[in-house]
């Protein structure tokens, strides 16, 4: 894991400091930098040093909380920390929605394979994975909070302030973020369930005299959920680590993603550098956590 984290930080360094074909100080300082600022940045980041030294300087800045945006004069790490509660509110709610709907739809689809329910759910799932998230968000905002004023137009109310308002403001973002994953997971679950329906243990369960319902839920569904949990580990890590950038930007939720989104508009690189690195780190941590959980849930994995 340490090796992966190191490799990630090297890639981030390479992306921001090595590949681009322009003066690094100019890039870091931002669009509207004057000569003096560029000079300062050059000094601070040591762009004349050899690459390994530059790498060390960058890592030191990111991890000592010393990294700041030269455009907004704000400390990057503090801004990211400020965004975490918003991002977590969005992602945890969306994750609950996407897992429940995905399991429900996948189960129905597999049980009714080939029938009308299955076909319509398949079409819905395909539409779900074919929609740009930001466009869906824009459409929901336009139709459900502008045309018909059912929901507020984005913004975030903290959970401590008013739990009801918090949820009310987050309903649209939750569903927006969940749609893609519902579509994808329900299809994966469907095919896994159809595969395991032919397994020997299912025949055994039936032979034991279990009801069809018990066979489906206790045996087929449970075993088919394992790959879904793996996917969930990856995707949840990705959305928390800044992957919810589009949803946050459109709904104006000031989370980690929206912070990165604003930085793109102004081509402000230090925030992007930090968000990219923390995002990838978070995914790695989360995956390790899922792996450990797995070993706990399934003894076979522990042995392998």
């Amino acid at each position, binding site marked *: 894991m340490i*090796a992966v984290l190191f490799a990630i930080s090297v890639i981030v360094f390479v992306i921001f400091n090595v*590949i681009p*074909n322009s003066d690094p100080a100019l890039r870091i300082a931002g669009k509207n930098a004057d000569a003096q600022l560029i000079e300062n940045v050059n000094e601070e980041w040591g762009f004349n040093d050899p690459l390994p030294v530059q790498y060390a300087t960058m890592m030191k800045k990111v991890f000592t909380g010393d990294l700041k945006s030269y455009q907004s004069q704000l400390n990057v790490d503090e801004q990211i920390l400020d965004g975490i509660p918003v991002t977590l509110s969005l992602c945890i709610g969306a994750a609950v929605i996407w897992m429940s709907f995905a399991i429900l739809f996948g189960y129905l689809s597999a049980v009714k394979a080939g029938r009308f329910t299955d076909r319509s759910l398949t079409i819905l799932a395909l539409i779900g994975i074919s929609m*740009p998230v930001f466009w869906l968000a824009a459409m929901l905002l336009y139709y459900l909070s502008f045309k018909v004023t059912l929901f507020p137009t984005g913004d975030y109310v903290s959970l401590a302030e008013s739990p009801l308002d918090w949820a009310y403001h987050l309903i649209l973002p939750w569903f927006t973020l969940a749609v893609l994953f519902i579509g994808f997971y329900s299809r994966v679950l469907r095919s896994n369930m159809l595969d395991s329906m032919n397994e020997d243990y299912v025949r055994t369960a039936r032979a034991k005299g279990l009801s069809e319902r018990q066979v489906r839920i206790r045996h087929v569904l449970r075993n088919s959920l394992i790959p879904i949990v793996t996917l969930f580990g990856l995707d949840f890590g990705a959305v928390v680590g800044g*992957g919810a*950038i589009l949803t946050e930007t459109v709904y104006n939720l000031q989370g980690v993603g929206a912070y990165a989104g604003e930085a793109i508009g102004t081509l402000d690189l230090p925030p992007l*550098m930090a968000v990219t690195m923390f995002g990838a780190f978070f*995914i790695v941590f989360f995956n390790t956590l899922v792996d450990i959980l797995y070993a706990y849930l399934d003894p076979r994995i522990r042995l392998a």
Partner: protein
Amino acid sequence: MASEPYVKPTFETPEGAPGEEYHVPGEPTRPPGERIEGRSPWYLAWRRLRRNRVALAFGALFVLIVLFCLAAPLWADIAGTGPNTNHLTDQITLGGEPTDVVAPNGTPIGPGLHTKFLLGADTNGRDVMVRMMYGGRTSIYIGVMAALITTLLAVTVGLLAGYFRGWTDSVLSRAMDVVWAFPVLLLGIALGTALAFGGLQLGPLTIPDNSLWIPILIIGCVYVPYMARPIRGEVLALREKEFVEAAVAQGKGPLRIMFTELLPNLWSTIIVFFTLNIANNMLLESALSFLGAGVKPPNASWGTLIAEGYDAIYTAPHLTIIPGVAIVLTVLSLNVFGDGLRDALDPKAKIRLEH
């Protein structure tokens, strides 16, 4: 046919000597003397695909969308305007009355039945229909080119890692794992913004920062692990087969085995992934462009059209809705067709999507 009495068929072998054919139970019997027609796996796949009307219909829809976008210059000629021509102060005749293309309060005209401004105008007074067609060319071009890059890289990595195993595999797989750890969108954004100044210098090749090749290369690279992993897995299984051993025994070198023995067995996987990859690429392109890290002016894509239109969503929603619908239709057509292709090429569902 099945109800006919069983007749043991005989047929002439190519040499002309009388031979007997083993009768496959369940297969219809053949009159004596008739040759068995060879059916290649491709022909069988095509027969399965042909039965899947929905997939074919969506495949046709994609072709229509591509043709529609290719006809952009033609329509621009008919409408008498270009994708970047402003008509901010112009007037056109609507229902016999002259109307401002863009009203004094900044609201452009909406879609209507007139050749010019068929889908309305944008806030700069540009023809949305013409821009849509040109934007579609960009979006589809990026999607296809990036998919070609992804496929090329992923197949190379998958073949090398799966065939040589050992340390080659370790190095390549670890590298893929690291790229995999980044959220795709964030990695795309990081590259997109880092290359937004000054473009890219690849040896003797310089790519300016507003070139379409910047998003193409970025999108082409970030999806490589998602395709390389399953291909590597398949190669690992294939290389244990007897035909590879036979090729080794014949004295074929690793490269020839990879290209003449392994690659032909990977085609169905590659085709399926390629189709679905174009769909994903188009979604990623639109997201990057929406955020300002993708296609740069003067080029326009469906993603940048939405980004521009979104600023005026409350006064001119058609600017957001139309390009969005175009993306959904195109991506949906590719996804449904790709799904049908997978069912046809791989009836036992070996090809698994990991995302």
